[in-house]
């Protein structure tokens, strides 16, 4: 590359701007221009974490954060699979705090949800988490108290495999995506309650009237309602760096660079792409997947994706995270030299919702009718010998995956149909929800390059549990946008009369029906969703699954870990409004003997309990 004086100047300015933001950052979150040449292979078994309020500089502007060890994001915690670790958390705030280990299969009383798994960490007191994680990969951690996650209380976790890593790479970076606001999050939430559309600066107008008339106007629903909280108040960040701060990474041409991407935003789904550089997805939600090459994917809040990129040309590439409503974006740089700045692409045109997003797409009737065919698949997913053939079938007939349950069991499941409460909190019940697993997400269906869909994901390892679920639990995602009410089955968390119950050892199908106009990243603590996506015995297993508007999506769950587990939408203000439940996995007396969790519980309850 020839020397470009203008670029040099930009680079220098970029570095200068970055110093303010990066001065206090841990090494992994610093740009290459601040000496980060890749991730240090840190590991340990004892970690000291202090939660406090401290000033930070985001996008050149001074602001107050609540976070861990004085940085936004919080420190990278890296340890080895199956190794016992201790995390001593001191709360230096004047209010309660907590840390939840997102996606980690820990004993439920170490899961970190105040009121469900423990009492929370009181002001000026400490709490020690102790566990070993039976898994490896990219995860993250965050507060489950108040709205602290919005103001900086989140950080990455890497769990190194105890064996060899099937993913080969020469260099790695962690990219923690966030949506920063300089406004008090409680104030933001109150503002949404007062006027849920007041942060949307893409409303219907005289010249763009869709939504004012017809079905949309009659139902008082907006086709422009893509995000509740937008770039109007958010500054989108990567490792605490806005675009101007230029989080820059370096590579040597030909190197395989592993990017561990974590969406730690409070409310923002991101479209992630690297123009001119194909990305090979190797891991989703911490579990390895069969490598799949793509150019762009949409990332729900709390999801993680690891991708491998292998740039051969010695030039800077942009890493772009664009908010789903296209009200803003953040760009980082992967370049051959520290401090380089890639050109920022323009924000693309804003997509518009359709009747399908309302769960009323009549053209999708074909998809509905395939429900009947699902039962014709005589190869139950538990017959391992047949699963290869099933995968083959799925590849050959891509449209099979658009049926709600192409690999469902041969017999009709006993179904616990949601006891759906309608009333002021529920505007719409999707009349014809359909599977949208083979769609990339709102706004990505028309881009001129490859996109990733849930239907593309295949677990690298065979699924550990291939039993046919014995029953199906249906949960509706419900809302009234006008009143900013969000709930499961029409009942806010504050008004539930019972939790969802699973029996220990049970294999259960959870079907999520999205009656709202928004995609919801639904997170279940303590268990993975085995996504029913036509993957045979290589289904992706996820801790967070995005349910698109008007979609009906099924997951199978092995209720292995006794305890009370939080279950909620990971859009923080949706949870705060009541889109939350508890899943109680009740001890099964028939299988108490050989269960290590039970053994731990029994020991704890007799010896350690206060």
């Amino acid at each position, binding site marked *: 590359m020839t020397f470009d004086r203008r670029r040099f100047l930009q680079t220098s300015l970029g570095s200068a701007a970055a110093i303010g933001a990066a001065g206090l950052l841990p090494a992994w979150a610093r740009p290459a221009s601040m000496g980060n040449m890749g991730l240090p292979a840190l590991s340990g078994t004892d970690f000291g974490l202090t939660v406090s309020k401290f000033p930070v500089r985001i996008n050149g502007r001074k602001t107050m954060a609540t976070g861990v060890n004085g940085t936004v994001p919080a420190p990278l915690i890296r340890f080895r699979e199956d190794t016992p670790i201790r995390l001593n958390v001191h709360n230096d705030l004047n209010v309660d705090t907590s840390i939840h280990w997102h996606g980690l299969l820990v004993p439920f009383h170490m899961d970190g949800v105040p009121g469900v798994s423990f009492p929370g960490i009181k002001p000026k007191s400490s709490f020690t988490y102790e566990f070993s994680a039976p898994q490896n990969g990219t995860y993250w951690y965050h507060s489950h108290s108040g709205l602290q996650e919005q103001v900086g209380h989140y950080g990455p976790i890497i769990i190194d495999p105890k064996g060899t890593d099937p993913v080969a790479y020469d260099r790695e970076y962690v990219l923690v995506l966030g949506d920063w606001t300089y406004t008090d999050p409680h104030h933001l939430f109150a503002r949404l309650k007062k006027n849920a559309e007041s942060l949307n600066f893409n409303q219907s107008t005289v010249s763009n009237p869709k939504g004012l008339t017809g079905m949309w106007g009659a139902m008082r629903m907006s086709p422009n309602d893509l995000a509740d909280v937008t770039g109007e108040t958010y500054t989108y960040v990567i490792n605490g760096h806005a675009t101007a701060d230029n989080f820059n990474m370096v590579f040597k041409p030909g190197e395989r660079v592993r990017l561990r991407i974590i969406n730690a935003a409070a409310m923002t789904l991101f479209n992630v792409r690297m123009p001119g550089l194909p990305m090979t997805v190797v891991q989703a939600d911490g579990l390895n997947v069969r490598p799949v090459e793509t150019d762009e994917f949409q990332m729900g809040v709390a999801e993680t994706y690891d991708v491998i990129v292998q740039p051969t040309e010695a030039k800077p590439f942009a890493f772009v995270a664009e908010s789903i409503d296209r009200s803003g974006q953040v760009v980082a740089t992967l370049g051959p030299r520290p401090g380089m700045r890639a050109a920022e692409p323009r924000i693309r045109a804003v997509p518009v919702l359709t009747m399908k997003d309302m769960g009323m797409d009549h053209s999708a009737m074909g998809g509905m009718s395939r429900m009947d065919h699902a039962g014709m698949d005589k190869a139950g997913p538990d017959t391992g010998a047949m699963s290869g053939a099933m995968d083959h079938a799925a590849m050959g007939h891509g449209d099979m995956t658009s049926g709600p349950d192409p690999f469902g069991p041969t017999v009709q499941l006993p179904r616990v149909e949601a006891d759906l409460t309608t009333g002021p*909190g529920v505007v719409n019940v999707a009349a014809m929800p359909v599977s949208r697993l083979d769609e990339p997400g709102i706004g990505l269906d028309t881009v001129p390059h490859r996109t990733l869909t849930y239907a593309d994901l295949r677990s690298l390892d065979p699924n550990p549990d291939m039993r046919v679920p014995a029953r199906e639990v249906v949960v509706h995602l419900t809302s009234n946008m006008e009143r900013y009410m969000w709930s499961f089955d029409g009942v806010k*968390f504050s008004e539930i009369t019972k939790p969802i119950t699973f029996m220990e050892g049970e294999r259960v199908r959870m079907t999520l029906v999205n009656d709202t106009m928004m995609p919801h990243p639904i997170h279940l603590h303590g268990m993975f969703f085995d996504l029913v996506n036509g993957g045979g015995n290589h289904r992706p297993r996820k801790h967070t699954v995005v349910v698109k508007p008007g979609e009906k999506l099924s997951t199978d769950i092995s209720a292995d870990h006794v305890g009370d587990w939080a279950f909620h939408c990971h859009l923080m203000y949706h949870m705060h409004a009541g889109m939350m439940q508890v899943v109680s996995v009740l001890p099964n007396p028939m299988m108490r003997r050989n269960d290590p969790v039970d053994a731990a519980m029994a020991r704890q309850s007799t010896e350690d309990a206060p």
Partner: protein
Amino acid sequence: MSVLSVRGVAFTILGVSALVAPLSAHAQNADAAEPDKLWSMADRYWGEAVMAEARDDLLAENGDMKTSMLMFDRLEWQDTGGDGTLLWDFQGWYGGDINKLYIKSEGEVSLEDDEIEDAEVQALWSRAVAPFWDVQAGIRYDLEPKGRTHAVLGIQGLAPYWFEVDTAAFLSTDGDLSARIEAEYDLRFSQRLVLQPRIEANLSAQDIRDIGVGAGLSSIEPGVRLRYEIRRTFAPYIGVEWQKQFGNTADFTRADGGDADNIVGVIGLRTWF
């Protein structure tokens, strides 16, 4: 005085305790579930009492947050001749998703005569009964003219095609029945420039001579206001309004030397917190 006690006092004044019963329905449910609790497996690790407290906090925090709002829909000067007239029209509320306390007030001050011409304040219990509709009940007190008190029953909400509607019937302590219908629509020319057609109609079941109101449709006030949202919460506007009285109301006004048919220009501010 705290907002909570405002609500408490208001409910007592309104004497709608029977209507408030649904408020405590959840508490009763929770009590009923208390022997088993909603979930309790962590109790044995950390203790029953601390977990009970944390559980209650968590439930309240995720779904039961209370909010308040103060909306000055119209805070304007009307060119009614001479020094003109100042008008206020605001609504404030406090509460949860289903039950809210509303305070509404509107009134006019004549700058020409330097006196308050009309002023009223309403305290209402508002209950969401459908996704877009609240039923409201309470009292209205007229500060000017005279000190009349009314019982109020109304419906407020969002009609299909995005029309904001606020209607109420008023029964005064003298036994006079009247009603008011207000409807507004936001027509956006851009993300900040909004034309708001608005109409208000007043009806009365009988002549009320001493306040100059005649039976039937007494008046309508259609108008348009063009506002610019410097922020969504702060929007100055200009507009024009037709103030038209009918029947006996018009006669009473003319008999008192007033004008029963006016077109006035307005300039004002729409703001909310």
